């Protein structure tokens, strides 16, 4: 367009669209670069003034703070690097467990809101309205306070089942005493999962070929329970348990789920589930009613209608917004810092306070969460592609 204009009349270069576009961009880039340079130079002078070190050298240094709970061995004598790793693992732990639980709960409530039973659907709707409209941080505080105020001190621990104690220090429960057998059983469990996957593939192929159905669910359940059980019996069936015992002011032995972790998990799961319920509901409603009628008319039971006809189609509508909700859960897990669960943000915050290296600390937080986000959305994109309708 511009070349045409140039050819028949004199156009000044500042009236040329392309030239102007380049000009705008140069100005913007220069402006951003200038701001960046200005800020960085300020940071440098400030850090020199306050004699704050720069760079990531602190990772090698001794952290000198304790962390309440950790998936790996950690003590105050370890490095900052290891402390941060503990934080990352704690964040991952709460996010992964939370994602699984919230998806299940959210789907369940979403289906409930569409129930023909008036009571169930009303309760479902009320749940969604209530939990969506209250800040998640408030919910976390609420559940944390519940733990502290309702449950008794260790001396008066609630003891619902033998060996399980509920106190304001969390839930203590027995675990099998350490024995190599449990490692083998774990392997057997993984092996069972692989076998089930293979069986399922074979069953689907067979059904496509011959129309015969195979009871995948029951066989799968059998393998899943049977294989680890067999391993246990073959290895002499050890039954020794590590039971928590009250010693002094707290329980020793067994495993403990801390109130911080429980409150965080419950709060995140309940909050996110209310959003997922809405997504699931919208997804199911997006499938035309004719599909349900057609499925019923070929004699499928209501449960099977949902499982075989509605859900596979609704999933395509559900997955993209579901992804962003699961990402939100991961990001909201950073609120752990408010109730004292040592997630990554809390450990990084302590690191910043001790070393004064705010820029590096905040940068690390951003990088870690960006990585989580990218990984989750990559996985969900892969899954979304998988469940896309295959046009034949």
């Amino acid at each position: 367009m511009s070349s045409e204009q140039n050819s028949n009349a004199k156009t000044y270069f500042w009236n040329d669209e392309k030239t102007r576009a380049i000009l705008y961009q140069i100005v913007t880039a220069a402006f951003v670069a200038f701001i960046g340079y200005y800020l960085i130079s300020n940071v440098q002078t400030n850090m020199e003034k306050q004699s704050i070190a720069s760079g990531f050298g602190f990772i090698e240094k001794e952290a000198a703070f304790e962390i309440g709970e950790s998936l790996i061995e950690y003590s105050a004598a370890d490095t900052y690097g290891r402390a941060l790793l503990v934080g990352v693992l704690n964040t991952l732990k709460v996010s992964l467990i939370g994602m699984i639980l919230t998806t299940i709960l959210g789907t369940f409530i979403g289906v409930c809101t569409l129930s023909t039973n008036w009571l169930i659907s009303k309760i479902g709707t009320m749940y969604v309205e209530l939990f969506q409209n209250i800040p998640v941080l408030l919910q976390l505080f609420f559940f944390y306070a519940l733990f502290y105020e309702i449950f008794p001190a260790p001396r008066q621990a609630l003891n619902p089942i033998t060996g399980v104690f509920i106190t304001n220090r969390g839930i203590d429960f027995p675990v099998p005493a350490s024995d190599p057998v449990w490692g083998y059983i774990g392997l057997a469990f993984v092996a069972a999962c692989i076998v089930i996957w293979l069986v399922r593939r074979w069953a689907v192929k067979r059904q496509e070929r011959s129309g015969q159905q195979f009871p995948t669910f029951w066989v799968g359940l059998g393998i899943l329970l049977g294989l680890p059980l067999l391993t246990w019996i073959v290895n002499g069936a050890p039954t020794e348990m590590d039971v928590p015992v009250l010693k002094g002011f707290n329980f020793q032995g067994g495993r403990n789920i801390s109130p911080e972790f429980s409150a965080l998990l419950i709060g995140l799961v309940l909050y996110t589930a209310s959003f997922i319920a809405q997504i699931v509901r919208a997804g199911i409603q997006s499938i035309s009613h004719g599909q349900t009628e057609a499925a019923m008319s070929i004699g499928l039971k209501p449960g099977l209608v949902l499982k075989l006809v509605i859900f596979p189609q609704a999933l395509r509508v559900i997955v993209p917004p579901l992804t962003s909700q699961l990402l939100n859960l991961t990001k909201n897990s950073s609120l752990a810092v408010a109730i004292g669960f040592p997630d990554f943000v809390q450990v990084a915050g302590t690191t910043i306070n001790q070393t004064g290296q705010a820029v590096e600390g905040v940068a690390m937080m951003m990088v870690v969460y960006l990585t989580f986000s990218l990984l989750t959305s990559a996985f969900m994109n892969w899954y979304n592609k998988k469940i896309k309708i295959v046009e034949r």
Partner: protein
Amino acid sequence: MAETTQIEEIKPPVTDVGVIGWLRQHLFNGLFNSIATILILGFLIKLIPQFIQWAFIDSVWFTSGQECHQAAGACWSVITQNIRFTIFGYFPYEHQWRPLVAMIILVGMLVYSREWNRWNKRLGYAWIFALLVMGLLMKGGLFGLVPVESTKWSGLPLTLLLSFFGILASYPLGVVLALGRQSQMPIIKSLCVVYIEMIRGVPLITMLFMSSVMFPLFLPEGVTIDKVLRAQAAIILFTAAYIAEVVRGGLQAMDRGQYEAAESLGLNYFQMMRMIILPQALKIVIPPTVGILISAFKDTSLVVIIALYDILNTTKSILSEPEWTGFSTEAYIFIAMIYYVCCFSMSKYSRRIEKQLEYKHTPNQE
């Protein structure tokens, strides 16, 4: 002559109409639903009286903390006795009428502005005037009002302030970012994409951390910006990225013909956007935008983490006093109700607008 015997009208069976019919259809259709109904009813019958007993019958309302510890039921006194600190926080006690008036003005203006047909220039001027008055009331210093440091602003006024200005300022910024992302110019486009995706990938807490620990390092020597303003900036920058994505949805939903028609009229880019594209695009994304605004409102509670005293934090500090420890449930229920009322009315509003828009898009349907 034709026989005129009247055939008696057969009424539907009693079990299919009226209360019984409703019950059968909605609560007891099929074995599963019947069992579920009975279970839920049993559960509710057990739970509701207990709750009523706790919340109303055994509860105390206007006592001191000591008496509360003896009461069997809820201690609502934790709210009634501390209501002024909960709502106004550290704002000087004798001047607390000022934030109260400011909040009333704000809510009144918002309620008045809810109808579109009232949006005109005069309302715009009224808003500017109202904002000035509110600023004056909060800050003081003129007309004999005692100046109050912004560090003293706390409680509900702070929550409303952070969310209102967060929303107000992030909206235009979000629109600009969305336009930048749709732009043909590669440098501007990539800057916007990087900004939006980066912000959306990190939690708000990191932004708040940035504002509280990193931002002071960015400033030249001797310059300090107070904490409320820094948190406000973080909220604005964060919300803008989310608004940008919503607005982008609206821009993409616009028909290509609209752009072409505008260009063929000889409008330049800014005229085209201002007069043709944005008015339509922004209108169709009002419902999701309100969704973003609701979450921005809820997210202001996160300033607790950088030790600003919004309404959640004033409540927490009351609960940490020995007299009132142990009554978190009651206090948090009260705060939850405040948030619930605000968020619920916003989402109601969005649903109403959605209905109005649906009607406008298909005028021939009825």
